[in-house]
């Protein structure tokens, strides 16, 4: 039979099932095939909070969402167009976010009485008419998979049961015309050692595909053209964690300095520790410290030794690092502190995202202790942020805080890989012995940075510490004027970084009266929201801050150029307070503190509410 093929500009697919159903695998395979096809894309996994919640329960649902399109993509998408539901719990957990009219592909075999109850349904949603608003496709995936696998030599029924995610993958691959070879090759080599299992999976995958091709259940196939407005270059798909780790390694190479990541495990920051521990052959080493305080101390110790000291954590761990970061401020040694923000306060919601550590990063230490703060805004941007953090730390001999978040760390997008040559050079500029003028550990260069004199250098022996130091000599000093001066110098040094901070660039026509200003992971949602508002004829501008301290030099001017400034944040208005205090501009906040990323639709709504003088 022939099937109609419909064109789509963008599609959002969400694979959802029990933690045991292999949805993350189905999702990543679909992603690779999509990338290979040249669509632009963005993905977001969503794991259950429990290590392993009881099978079939809502708490055990695991999902993977992919947004792909023929034009540049800004977010993993808000609402899915298609939901693959491998069991009742998966359906129930994800239905709230499904817009009416969307398609549901359900594995009806899994809708047993027991599972339906476990999910908290009184009746079978596939039959009680509660889904009439959606395009429901009921498919006995388990049965079909088992049948497809039966033929395979030495494949157990267990293997068959396990392969139904590949059936789903095959089916979706057909629906959206994804290439099959990519996936089959992957299966072959993944299970190379177990040919039977490999075979079983290939069969399941093929079965899914031909099911779409042949049955009448599905009549439409969709086509999403390859993205054309993507700038040329070589791309790979990375999430924020991966990109950040590569940025750090790149900084190590470009500075010629080995890098030590000392970290204490914590969700979601642990991933960076796992990632960097795997790098062999590069001058990257890792230590799992006894706690976050020790981790920060170890990074600082490495910095004292002339290497790149990095420590990574999330909220609770940041509290614990404060004292050591303060010491680094006094010692004026380079050091990078990564905070992958999560929902707080306290233990909060460890697997959920938030942006509520901004003011802590800037003010969360006793005494006057200024620290540069950088925040990437896209997964790929984490590469640049990591590289930049190291560069600034070394150039200014200062600890630098990098604020990522759960959403950035785990969502992925195609990232244009930079040529090594494109990357800035980083000059450690270690102090060298000069005959007849002894080292002045707290003398300063034109950037107000002090000498980095590392152990092993003959003649430069010196002592530094957390007590206030006399300018130049670095000797302990309780002198009043000196303390004022040193406080001044430390502040001026950090403030001076703004000379190197790229100016804030505004996207929007001169008629725009409203500026939407964001920071961190909300960039995609903000740009998408702005685009949608514009498509409705609303004049609106947007800009995104990547350097939170110091702020870009032109920030004040930009703010004062607009009648209204809207700052969407996943907190109660932290950047807003800062901007108001610094520039006395009546910034308005859109605050979302739900442990979820900001969605384009929400930004769009907020913009429209303010369009033609709406009161917001």
């Amino acid at each position, binding site marked *: 039979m022939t099937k109609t093929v419909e064109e789509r500009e963008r599609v959002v697919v969400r694979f959802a099932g029990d933690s045991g159903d292999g949805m993350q695998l189905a999702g990543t395979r679909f992603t690779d095939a999509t*990338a290979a096809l*040249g669509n632009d894309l963005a993905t977001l996994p969503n794991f259950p909070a429990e290590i392993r919640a009881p099978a079939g329960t809502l708490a055990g649902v695991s999902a993977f969402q992919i947004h792909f399109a023929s034009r540049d993509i800004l977010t993993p998408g808000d609402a899915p167009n298609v939901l693959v539901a491998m069991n009742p719990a998966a359906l129930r957990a994800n239905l709230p976010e499904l817009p009416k009219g969307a398609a549901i592909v359900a594995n009806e075999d899994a809708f047993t009485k027991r599972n339906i109850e476990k999910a908290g349904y009184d009746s079978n949603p596939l039959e009680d008419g509660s889904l009439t608003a959606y395009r429901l496709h009921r498919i006995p995936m388990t049965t079909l998979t088992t049948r497809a696998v039966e033929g395979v030599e030495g494949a157990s029924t267990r293997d068959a049961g396990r392969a139904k995610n590949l059936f789903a993958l095959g089916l979706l691959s057909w629906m959206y015309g994804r290439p099959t070879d990519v996936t089959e090759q992957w299966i072959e080599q993944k299970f190379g050692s177990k040919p039977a299992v490999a075979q079983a999976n290939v069969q399941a995958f093929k079965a899914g595909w031909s099911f779409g091709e042949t049955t009448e259940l599905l009549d439409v196939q969709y086509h999403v053209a390859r*993205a054309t407005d*993507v*700038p*040329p270059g*070589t*791309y*790979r*798909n990375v999430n924020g964690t991966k990109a950040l780790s*590569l940025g750090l*390694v790149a900084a*190590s*190479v470009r*500075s*010629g*300095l*080995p890098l*030590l990541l*000392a970290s204490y495990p914590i969700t979601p920051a642990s991933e960076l520790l796992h990632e960097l*521990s795997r*790098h*062999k052959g*590069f*001058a*990257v*080493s*890792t*230590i799992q*410290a*006894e*706690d976050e*305080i*020790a981790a920060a*101390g170890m*990074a*600082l*110790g*490495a910095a*004292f*030794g*002339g*290497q790149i000291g990095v420590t990574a954590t999330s909220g609770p761990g940041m509290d614990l690092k404060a004292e050591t970061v303060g*010491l680094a401020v006094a010692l004026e040694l380079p050091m990078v502190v990564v905070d992958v923000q999560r929902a707080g306060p306290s233990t909060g919601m460890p697997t959920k995202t938030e942006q509520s550590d901004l003011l802590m990063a800037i003010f969360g230490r006793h005494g006057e202790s200024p620290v540069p703060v950088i925040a990437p805004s896209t997964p790929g941007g984490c590469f640049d942020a990591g590289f930049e953090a190291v560069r600034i730390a070394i150039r200014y001999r200062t600890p630098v805080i990098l604020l990522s978040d759960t959403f950035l760390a785990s969502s992925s997008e195609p990232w244009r*890989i930079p040529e*090594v*040559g494109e990357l800035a050079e980083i000059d450690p500029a270690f102090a060298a012995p000069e005959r007849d003028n002894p080292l002045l550990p707290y003398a300063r260069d034109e950037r107000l940075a002090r000498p980095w004199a590392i*152990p*092993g250098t*003959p*003649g*430069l*022996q010196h*002592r*530094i*510490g*957390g*007590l206030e130091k006399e300018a130049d000599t670095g*000797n*302990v000093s309780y002198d009043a004027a000196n303390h004022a001066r040193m406080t001044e110098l430390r502040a001026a040094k950090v403030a001076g970084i703004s000379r190197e901070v790229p100016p804030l660039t505004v996207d929007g026509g001169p008629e725009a009266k409203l500026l939407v200003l964001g920071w961190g992971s909300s960039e995609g949602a903000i740009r998408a929201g702005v685009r949608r508002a514009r498509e409705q004829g609303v004049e609106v501008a947007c800009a995104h801050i990547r350097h939170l301290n110091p702020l870009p030099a032109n920030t004040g001017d930009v703010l004062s150029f607009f009648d209204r400034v809207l700052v969407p944040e996943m907190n109660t208005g932290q950047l807003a307070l800062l901007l108001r205090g610094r520039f006395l501009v009546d910034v308005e906040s859109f605050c979302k503190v739900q442990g979820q990323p900001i969605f384009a639709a929400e930004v769009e709504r907020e913009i429209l509410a303010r369009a033609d003088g709406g009161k917001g």
Partner: protein
Amino acid sequence: MSTSNGNGAAPHTNGGAPEELTKADFQSDQETRWCPGCGDYAVLSAVQQFMPELGIPPERIVFVTGIGCAGRFAYYMDTYGMHGIHGRAPAIATGLAATRNDLSIWVVTGDGDALSIGGNHLIHALRRNVPLKILLFNNQIYGLTKGQASPTSELGKVTKSTPFGVADHPFNPIGLALGAEATFVARTIDRDRHHLAEILRAAANHDGAALIEIYQNCPVFNDAAFSALTDKGLKDSNQIRLEAGRPIRFGADGERGIARTGDGSLEVVEVADVGEQALVVHDPRAADPGLAYSLAHLAEEPSGPTPIGIFREVHRPAFRRAEGSVDPPSEDQLGRLLFTEDAWTIA
């Protein structure tokens, strides 16, 4: 940067040390700021005196210290030094050791710095066997903050923070270090320059973490805490000097000794009564750490017969930087890391 692959602290790695180093080469220009008569002076002088023996040039020696009177030590050594924050010196030094195994790294800490706020870092540095020489100045009091109780202050001691006397049972630093799997544990005394040097020497030669508890007198807030071991009249009868391979004897003429009771516990005996062959022979290298541990608990307080010397000295691979080569790779290598096969090109 990390060229030598030996333990920077071991004399044999002496690369390019000027022939003749002297004590003066290790004295900084800073005026010492301890109270008159403080035991810290004696230790400082003994350490500066000993340093040349290492045969390591001052620029490859680092002192990382915590906060406290003891913590000021760093300022007085003409080596590289960091006066860190309270209790964290072992962690900071671990980061340095992890990245620079060409250095000889020394930690100076106090009983409060090491055992109160810094307890966790100390036990982990010992467990990991990080090549650090840790000098724990135990004056059984908080000096810098002017006289509060420390985790080694004896029961009943009246201090600013315990006006009705210390109620908490103190730590036995040697026992705690052994409990933390330390490979080198020793005790010495500020006033015994010879014994101190001997212990420093052994520690420097140990490839791994070495903890040295130094009984240090604080004349201002806890004077004479160790007089039983330092006073003319008393020291001979109270110092139990542990020597590897030798039966444990002490007293002016070695008239007393340590033997095992029927149940294997240690007890003090008159050699005349039991004969030397009945004495326990000290073995810091024994596989079973039980003996060292029992010796540590022979005296809960240094008010009577108290062992000094090396309690334990065993070999275990020292902490090294995690996997990963030492020198940053070439740009091609980086290129290969960035451009993976699954990458695709858009023209």
